[in-house]
C-alpha cells in the first residue's frame, strides 16, 4: 500500500514538527538558564505555557478587526504547511514537490506580513513600532537568505529541497568553501528570522528593544497560544532547514520504519547540538542596537555572496 505509507510518513513528520518544536525551544531555554547560572523550568515549560494560554479566555481590544483574529491561525497554518513540505525525517515526502525552498521562505514571509498587519490593527504605538522594525529587519534578511539559498541550489543543481538533500547526502564528506560560507550566512539569517538574541530578544518586554513581542502585545488566550506555538515551529523549521541544507546526513532515504527511527534519532541529536550552539551565541553576545543590524545582516549577505563567488571560482 504505497499511498497509505506516504500519508503515514507525512503524518509522522507533522507530529514531529508540531510536537517537538516547543521541546526544542524548551531545550534552548533550559541551556540558556544553566549557562547564565539560573535554575531552569525544564524542557517542558513551553508546553505548559501553551496549555495555560489555551485554557484562558480571549480578551480582545475594542477596535480589533478580523485581521487581528485571523492572523494567529494564519501564522500557525503557514508554519504547519511548511513543516509538512520540508524534508525533515524522510526525503520521501509526497507533498514535497508542492513547494521549493523559495516558496517555503515566501510562505513564512506571508505569515510575517499578516503578523505585522496585526501589530498595526489596534492602533497602539508599540504595535506599529514592532511592525515597522520587523519589516525593516526582514527586508535586510531577505537578500542574504536568498544568496545562501542560491549557493546551495547551485551546488545541488535544484531549488527543490528534496533534490538538494539527496545530492548532499549522497556526496562524500568534503569541505566545500561555498557551502561553508553559505552555512555561516545561514546561521546569521536564522538568528534574525527567529528573533534570537543579537537581533531581537524573545524574552524581553522592554519597550525600546522589543520587535516581535511588540507586535503581539495585545494578544491573549488561544490567539497568543497559536502565535507562540507558530513562532516556535517557525524557529524549529528554520533550524531544520539549515540541517537539510548543510547537515543532511542520516535522513531516511527509504520509507522503512527502521530508517525513519534512525532519522528521527539523528535529527534530535543534531537539534540538541545546534541548540547548544545557539545558546553559546546568545549568551556570548549582547543585543545589538537596531541600526547596528545593518552591519550584522550586511555581514550575512557578504558571506552568502562569497559563497556564490567561491562556487564559481573554485568549483
Amino acid at each position, binding site marked *: 500500500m504505497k499511498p497509505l505509507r506516504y500519508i503515514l510518513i507525512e503524518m509522522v513528520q507533522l507530529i514531529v514538527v508540531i510536537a517537538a518544536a516547543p521541546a526544542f525551544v524548551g531545550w534552548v531555554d533550559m541551556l540558556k538558564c544553566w549557562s547564565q547560572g539560573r535554575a531552569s523550568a525544564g524542557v517542558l515549560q513551553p508546553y505548559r505555557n501553551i496549555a495555560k494560554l489555551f485554557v484562558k479566555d480571549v480578551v480582545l481590544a475594542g477596535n480589533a478587526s478580523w485581521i487581528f483574529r485571523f492572523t494567529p491561525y494564519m501564522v500557525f497554518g503557514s508554519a504547519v504547511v511548511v513543516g509538512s513540505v520540508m524534508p525533515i525525517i524522510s526525503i520521501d515526502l509526497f507533498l514535497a514537490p508542492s513547494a521549493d525552498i523559495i516558496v517555503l521562505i515566501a510562505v513564512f514571509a506571508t505569515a510575517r506580513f499578516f503578523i505585522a498587519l496585526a501589530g498595526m490593527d489596534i*492602533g497602539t504605538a508599540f504595535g506599529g513600532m514592532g511592525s515597522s522594525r520587523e519589516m525593516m529587519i526582514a527586508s535586510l534578511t*531577505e537578500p542574504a537568505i536568498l544568496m545562501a539559498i542560491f549557493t546551495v541550489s547551485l551546488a545541488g543543481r535544484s531549488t527543490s529541497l528534496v533534490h538538494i538533500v539527496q545530492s548532499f547526502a549522497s556526496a562524500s564528506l568534503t569541505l566545500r568553501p561555498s557551502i561553508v560560507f553559505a552555512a555561516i550566512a545561514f546561521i546569521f539569517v536564522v538568528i534574525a528570522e527567529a528573533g534570537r538574541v543579537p537581533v531581537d530578544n524573545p524574552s524581553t518586554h522592554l519597550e525600546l528593544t522589543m520587535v516581535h513581542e511588540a507586535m503581539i502585545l495585545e494578544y491573549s488566550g488561544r490567539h497568543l497560544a497559536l502565535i507562540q506555538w507558530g513562532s516556535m515551529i517557525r524557529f524549529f523549521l528554520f533550524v531544520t532547514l539549515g540541517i537539510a541544507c548543510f547537515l543532511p546526513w542520516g535522513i531516511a532515504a527509504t520509507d522503512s520504519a527502521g530508517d525513519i527511527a534512525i532519522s528521527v534519532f539523528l535529527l534530535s541529536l543534531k537539534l540538541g547540538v545546534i541548540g547548544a550552539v545557539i545558546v553559546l551565541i546568545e549568551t556570548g553576545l549582547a543585543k545589538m542596537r537596531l541600526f547596528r543590524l545593518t552591519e550584522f545582516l550586511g555581514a550575512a549577505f557578504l558571506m552568502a555572496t562569497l559563497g556564490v563567488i567561491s562556487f564559481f571560482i573554485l568549483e
Partner: protein
Amino acid sequence: MMSPIKLSLLSAAAFIIPILFVVLIGGYRRLLIRMAFSVSALASLISVGAGILAVSSSAAEQLILPLGLPSLPFHLRLDQLSGFFLFVVGLLSFFVSIYSVGYVTGLAAGKPVKRLIVFYNIFIAAMFMVCLADDALIFMVAWEVMAAASYFLVMFEDGRSENRRAAYLYMVMAHIGAILILLSFGVMAGIAGGFENFTGYTFDAMREAEFPLKWATAAFLLSFFGFAAKAGVIPFHVWLPEAHPVAPSNVSALMSGVMLKTAIYGIVRVTFDIINVFPWWWGMMVLVLGLVSAVMGVLYALMQHDLKKLLAYHSVENIGIILIGIGLSMIFTSFNLPAMAALALIAGLYHTMNHAMFKGLLFMGAGAVLNATHERNMDEMGGLIHHMPWTSVLFLVGCISISALPPFNGFVSEWLTFQAFLLSPSLPNPLMKLLIPLGAALLALTGALAAACFVKVFGVVFLGNWRGLSRPLLTKVTEVTEAGWSMRIGMMLAAFTCLCLGILPAIIIKWMDVISEELLQTRLITTSGVYDWMWLTPVDPERASYSGPLVLIGIAAVCAITYLLLHVKPGKISRVPVWDCGFKKLTSKMQYNAVSFSMPFRRIFGFLFDIKEQISLLPQRRHPAFPVKSSYYLRVRDRFWGWIYKPVIDAVVLLSRKAGMIQHGRIHVYLIYSFVTIIVLLALL
C-alpha cells in the same frame, strides 16, 4: 465566426459609441455615465475575446486598412504577442469600466464628466491600436493619440496649478519618448527600404531587413529609451509619480496598469521581433536599468505618504521587475540559450499581466478610499476596515499580490524570475556568472521592501484608528461609507483574477507559451504528467516545482482545522479597551503613521535620497527645558531631479533667454531678419 483581427478592430471602433452618447444624451449625467461605461466595458470584453483567440490560433493575421496617407495604407497585424497584450489591456479596461460606472457617478457635480468619458474611450481604443499596429505610421499615430488622450485625462482637475504642472511634465516626457521612437523607426525603415521610397515603414519590411550592428544598436537604443520614457524606467520616471496621482483613479488604474505595458510591448516587439539578433550588452543594460528601477522605485514608494503617489512609484518598481525578466531573456538569447530565454521572457510577460491586475486593483481601491474620505494623505486616515469592509479586503488582496507573497499572482512571476536567475551559471561569460546572482539578491530586496511598504499602506489606511490630524472637524470618520456595487464588482473581478493567476499559473503559462515559440522558437517544459495544471515546473520537475493550489489548500485546511478544534467548546471573547501595557492616555495621534513607519528605512537607505528633516521646539517662557510645542518637518526629494532634470531645464531656459534677445517686437527688425535669411539662402543654393 469573425476572425480575431476583425473582432479586435471592431472592439476598438466600438469605443466611438460612448463618445456619441456624450453628444446625444450629454444632458442626463447619470444615464450617460451608465450607458457610456457599459459600452466601454463591452467593447473591452470583445477585445479580450479577440486576444484569447489570437493567442490560441497558430498563425498571425494581417489586415491592410484603406486609410492613411496616399499609397501608405495602415497595416494591422494580430499575432500571439499582440494578442496577449490585447488580452491584458482589454481585461483591465473591462474591470475598470465596470468600476467607473460607480466611481464617476461619485465624483463631485462640477467635474467635467463629459470630457472624461470622451478621452477615456479614445485612450483605451488607442492602446488597442498600438497593440495591433504593424507599421511605423499607425504605431506612431496610435501612440500619440494615446499620449494626448491621457494628457487630457491627467488634466482632469485643471483648476489646480500642480495638476497642470504634472500634465505639462508628462506631455514633455511623452514627446521626448515619442521623438526617440520615431527616430528609431526612421533608422530601421531606412535600412529596410532605403531612403528613396517608403516601403520600409512596415514592420514586415523591417523584420526582413538585415541590420548592420551599429545601426541596429542605434535603433535599439533610440527605441528602448523612447519606450523607457513612457514606462517610467529610472531615470525617466519623474513624470510618473506626478501625473498618475492627479488623474481620476479609474484613469490612474489604466495608466499604471496597462498604458505602461504598451511600452513593454514596444520593447519586446522591437528587440525580439524586429531586430531579432543582438549582442549581450543590450540585455545587460536592460537588466541593470530594470534592477535600478525596481530597487529605487520601491524605496521611493516607501518614503511617500500620499497614497496614489506611493502606488505610482510602485509602478516604477514593477516595470523594473518586468525589465529584469526581459533583460535576462535578451542575455540568454544573445548567448543562444533559447530555452532559458523563453523562461525569462515568460517571467517578464507574466509579471506584465500580474502587475496590470494588481495595480489596477490597488488604484481602484485607492479611488474608493479617495471618494469616501476626500483625502490622499495616508497620515490622515486609519481604521477604514471598519467602515469599508469590502474595499479593505479587496485592497488587501492587491497588497498581498504586489508584495510577491504566495498564493497570489505577484509571487508566481517573481518566482519564475528567480528561476531564470538561477539558470545564469549556464552563461559562458565568467564575469556575468558572478554578477547576475547579485541581481537576484536585489530582486529579493525589492520584494521584501514592497512587503514592508504594503504593510505600511494597509496598516496606516485601513487598520488602527482614524487620525484626522490636520482637519479633525472637516472629515468625520462616521461619514465614510463603503464603495458602491459597481466599484466593488470591478475590484472583485480584478482580485479574483489575481487569485486565479496565482494558483493556476500552469494553465496560463501553457496558454501563453506560444509567445516564446513565436519569438524564440522554443517552448517551456511545463508539463509533469497527470494533474499538470497543479504543478508549475518551468525548467524540469527535478529542478524546481511550485503548486499554488496545494499551498493555498494546505494553509486554508490547517487554519480551518485549528479553528474548529479550538471552537469545540465555545470560547469566550470579551471586548475591552486597548491594553497597551497599561498606558492609559492613548490617542489616535500616537499611532505609527506612514512617516514614522518608514523611519528605519530612511535611516538605512537615506543616502540615496535628498532628505531634509527638521525638528523645532517652541520653548516655554519660563524655562527652555520644557517645550510647549514641537513641530516636525520632513522633505524627501528625488536626487535624479537635481542630477539630470534641473541642469537640462536650466540650460534650456538659458538658451531660450539668449535666443529671446533677437526678439524685439519691432516690425522693421523682423523684416531685416527675413531679408537676410533670403539673401543667405539664395547665396547658398
